[in-house]
């Protein structure tokens, strides 16, 4: 070990000329605002939360080491943990694939050469810059059982009204529908991806007699897989962290039971992050909340790795 270290330092000394070292020093000085910020505001809190996750800590009294107790309690004894995990997985399982489907479809439509294309692109992008809180309040009105636009639409089609925000079976679908409204950001990425696909491939396909559908499934989609992959990873991470929408829809439109209403009727909007927040800032179980945060990190890491692994089989970089 000592040998390796001395070798590295020796190589370091030999490898870096005076000028290079000078450059390195100045480089570090120039990025130091970021470095200091990263170390103090990201790295330190992360390491501290890892430590706290093994303690019983309520801010005022000193943390007390409890080993794996927080993790064990969450996984075996907490009656709301399963609810929170189920709600989050349910949301991720539908919101992420549907989001990709809708945004790819929109990107294909917005890539067509029609009049006023820029206007359409703008229209679809605007929702993604509306702050989540404002959008959530807006959707509470849209989802209103009696006079919400969505139910009025359903009624016009002769369908029954849906109690979007008071029926625990419908609150998550409501949230998923809401998430589809702000796909504008990913549409832009898919649009860029579409522009990247060489026109020559379509020309060749047309010469071979491929129809539009075949062109989409055989050329467009496969060559869009790098963007889809990127969006899948980001979408999964985002879905695991869903918070604001649930917090607002849950507390404004939710059930009627006082404090319980903040997580929607029958806790149907109690997502993982929301429950984590309640543990940390309502119940001041900081150790427990830290453990929850690290478990969420592990869940996110594992699912991202699985997606990464699988990407070898379905992501095509076109060999370009």
């Amino acid at each position, binding site marked *: 070990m000592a040998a390796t270290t001395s070798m590295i330092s020796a190589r370091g000394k030999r490898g870096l000329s005076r000028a290079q070292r000078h450059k390195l020093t100045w480089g570090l000085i120039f990025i130091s605002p970021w470095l200091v910020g990263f170390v103090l505001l990201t790295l330190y809190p992360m390491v501290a939360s890892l430590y706290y996750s093994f303690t019983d800590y309520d801010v*005022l009294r000193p943390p007390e080491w409890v080993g794996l107790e927080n993790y064990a309690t969450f996984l075996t004894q907490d009656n709301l943990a399963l609810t929170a995990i189920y709600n989050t997985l349910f949301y991720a399982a539908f919101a992420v694939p549907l989001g990709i489907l809708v945004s790819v479809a929109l990107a294909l439509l917005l890539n067509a050469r029609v009049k006023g294309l820029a206007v359409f692109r703008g229209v679809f992008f605007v929702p993604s810059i509306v702050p989540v809180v404002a959008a959530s309040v807006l959707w509470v009105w849209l989802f209103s*059982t009696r006079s919400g636009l969505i139910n009025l639409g359903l009624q016009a089609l002769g369908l029954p009204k849906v109690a979007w925000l*008071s*029926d625990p079976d419908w609150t998550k679908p409501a949230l998923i529908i809401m998430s589809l409204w702000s796909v504008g950001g990913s549409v832009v990425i898919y649009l860029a991806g579409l522009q990247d696909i060489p026109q020559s491939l379509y020309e060749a396909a047309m010469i071979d007699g491929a129809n539009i559908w075949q062109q989409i499934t055989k050329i467009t989609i496969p060559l869009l897989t790098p963007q889809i992959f990127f969006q899948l990873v980001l979408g999964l991470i985002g879905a695991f962290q869903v918070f604001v929408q649930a917090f607002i829809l849950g507390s404004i439109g939710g059930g009627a039971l*006082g404090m319980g209403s903040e997580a929607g*009727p*029958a806790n149907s909007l109690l997502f993982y992050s929301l429950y984590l927040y309640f543990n940390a800032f309502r119940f001041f179980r900081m150790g427990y909340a830290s453990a929850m945060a690290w478990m969420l990190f592990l869940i996110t890491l594992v699912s991202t790795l699985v997606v990464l692994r699988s990407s070898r089989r379905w992501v095509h970089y076109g060999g370009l």
Partner: protein
Amino acid sequence: MSSKPVVTRRTLLRTIAFSAASGVLAACGQAAAPINAPAATAAPVEVTKEVTKEVAVEVTKMVEVVVTATPAPKPPAMEVKAPTIDPQPDPAVDLAFWDWYGRLVWNKQDLKQVQVDAWNTANPNIRVSYLPNAGAKEKVLTAVASGNPPDLLLTDPPADYVFRGALESLQPFLEKGGHPFTMDAIYPGVWKAMEYEGQVYGVHKVVNNGGLYINADLFQQAGPDPEKPPTNLTELEEYALKVQQTGSDGSIEILGFSPWMNIAGIWGTWAEAFGAQMWDAQNRKVTFDEAASVKALQWQVDYAQKLGGYEKILQFNDTLQGGVDPFGSGRVAMYYTGPWQIGIMQDTYPDINYRTARAPVPEGGRPGSWLGGGWMVIPKGAKHRDLAWEFLKFYCGKEAQDYEGTQGIGFSIFPAENDKNAWFKSVKPLQPFIEDLPNSWPIPLIPTVSHAFFTAFNPMVDEALRGKRTPDDAMKEASRLAQVEVDRFLKK
């Protein structure tokens, strides 16, 4: 009408009518706030007989409105004076006063500022700076942990702080005397709410309790006499079913009464009304599963069924527009909430004809409701504890309680002050609340109260209402879940 019409006929009519109505009002001798009636600056206009007649009609209409609308005159103008502490510290000291509450309907920030200003005028060297919306719990706990807390804090139920040792006990100050905070001078429920395991940690500033609001027009339409409000839950049910209106699609158009709307149902209102204690302080046991508590839940389950199912009531909630008061908009015939609703009715829904009644309880049940309001506390490690206590004595003292209560529709914690308050007596809708104050109770004094209700009690009530558990089973499970956390918390 060739010349430019400076004043339209309509405006003129309104102006004259309004001035006349003000005259009528003044003649009635009501303690109305001075009305700045538009001065008769209108250009001389020939008033024909026809116009005179129209004026008369308008005046009659306005007088009608004024007389039939619920009487809720503005409170009398008051001043608040602070004592000067002698000697004044030198150099001057700054006291930070954080307020957990923000722009809630009943949190009168401007009134608080007036009291703080009065103090600062009398005490130039003990300056208090009032910061509303500044007492988020995580912020206060962090401030205490880092040794730099505010000197004073106005907070919601302080259990979260007390059991973490985040507050100075006020016991030593109380023992020194020279203050009005004695057990026999304060409502028993309020005193109970201030004391944790034999130590007083905070003094209530202005209290509120719950009561029943009744829409008199909806009652009259359906039959029940609004002058005879329900006196128990059986009558409440009967009236609720009578006044409830259902739309063509089977959904509730006008709701009779919801036991879970607004402040009803929060903090185990019904369990307490049925006589449950919810917390056994001596043995430090959560007792959500007392017989009374199970009985209360059974009543809620039965009631929901009679009204067409719990889901139906939830769906009704969903039909309410955000920002519109369900009672004020006439969609709910009976409404369980605090006295601040009187202000809402006066400011936003003056046309609704309503009555108030004491909080509904079961026959032979415990009269009253739970007590709300803020607690003034001194966080642990506050730098100027003694001066903070001096301010607290003024701010929670008789005069300031009376001032904020009267101006902001809340009550003093001193029964004698409320009994003396002539204005309270003149506002009829306030009476049931005042009558109930001596019986009202604090929210359960469980150390982990937020956790107990959020993760145990409320979800279990919900499961019972959805038919997933029997009330008995639900309350047993709620007790068990809450106890686990209490034990974990107190073990330290």
